């Protein structure tokens, strides 16, 4: 009747169905080694079945109920509070960020505009002086070349000094075009040279030396 071998016992245990276990039991009746294995197997199963734990705790359900109720009460309000706080912080942060950025940008823009505009004004004045100086030099040159009077010689020396000073100042300005002090100094020199040249042009070569 029993057709299974010892090697097939594991297959029957793996199957685990009532029929398989019955077949294993029949085989074990004639095989001590398999009987021992099967006995351990069944003992483990029986022990496990006795390990289901049951106990009464009348306080557990009320505790769970309270926890759920607390969670239900707390969750939406808590979520709303967190959401509102996040929106507020993000909103304030973004507003401050944009305000500061705009302020910084405006200030920088104003600074740039003022600087550019002042620089343009100075350079326009310089160009105006240079143009006037060029014209005056053309007019004054013959007189200066023929400087016969002490006054004309003095003008000539003054103009040479001014040219040296202007050249030096222009060199310094090349290194730092934003230097207002040098710019003012250069303008003053141009103005002085222009005035000196005008004086030279106005000077009557035939006029008697006082």
């Amino acid at each position, binding site marked *: 009747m029993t057709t299974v071998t010892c090697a097939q016992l594991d297959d029957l245990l793996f199957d685990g169905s009532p029929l398989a276990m019955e077949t294993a039991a029949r085989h074990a009746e004639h095989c001590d080694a398999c009987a021992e294995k099967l006995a*351990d197997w069944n003992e*483990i*199963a029986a*022990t496990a079945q006795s*390990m*289901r734990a049951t106990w009464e*705790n009348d306080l557990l*359900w009320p505790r*769970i109920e309270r926890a*759920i109720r607390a969670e239900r009460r707390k969750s939406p309000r808590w979520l709303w509070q967190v959401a509102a706080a996040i929106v507020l912080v993000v909103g304030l942060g973004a507003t401050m960020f944009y305000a500061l950025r705009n302020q910084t940008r405006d200030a920088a823009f104003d600074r740039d505009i003022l600087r550019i505009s002042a620089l343009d004004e100075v350079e326009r004045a310089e160009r105006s002086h240079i143009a006037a100086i060029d014209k005056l030099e053309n007019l004054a040159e013959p007189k200066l070349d023929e400087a016969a009077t002490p006054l004309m010689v003095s003008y000539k020396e003054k103009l040479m000094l001014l040219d040296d000073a202007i050249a030096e100042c222009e060199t310094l300005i090349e290194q730092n075009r934003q230097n207002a002090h040098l710019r003012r100094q250069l303008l003053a020199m141009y103005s002085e040279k222009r005035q000196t040249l005008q004086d030279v042009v106005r000077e009557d070569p035939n006029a008697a030396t006082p």
Partner: protein
Amino acid sequence: MLQSAMTTTMIPATAPSGSEDRRLAAACAEGDSRVFEEIYRRFGDRMKSIAWNHLGNASDAEDAVQETFLKIHRAATTYTGEASFSTWAYRILVNTCYDLLRRRRRRIEEAPIDDVVETAERTAPSVDDAKRMTLRKLLNELPEQRRTVFTLFEIEGLSHAEIGQILGISEGNSKWILFATKKELQEKWKRSQ
């Protein structure tokens, strides 16, 4: 008072499925206290037993059950109905037990599971406490998944289909894991006797 029983459980392994399960889930999402109580009355004992057999003491088991109910409340809207509501709840419970085990490993080591079992009152005269303690000790040495498969099948009487859904494995895999676990336990059992 802790008790164990040789008889199979009176609680059905799974709840009625389909629309009934979806009704439970919807009511849980709304926080309906009566439905939670219904779930507790229907599945609470099994949940406590599963938790006890994972965590080893009633206090931690009750904490796990409470935490599971809170998680059910939070996640009820995500219940799809693929598994029965009870299977879904047991899955949450098992994962909660894993979390608690990891979090409380040190505490459990300080209060060995054998001590808890020793002080517990049992009413299973056919199998002595020494065997239960031996088996429990051997189960504690197993990896989480193996222990859970063994616990759910041999102790709680769940089917391999249900265990597969709880652990996210196939039915066949659950069967194989149980067989391999029992073979391992058999070897150790023999040596411990």
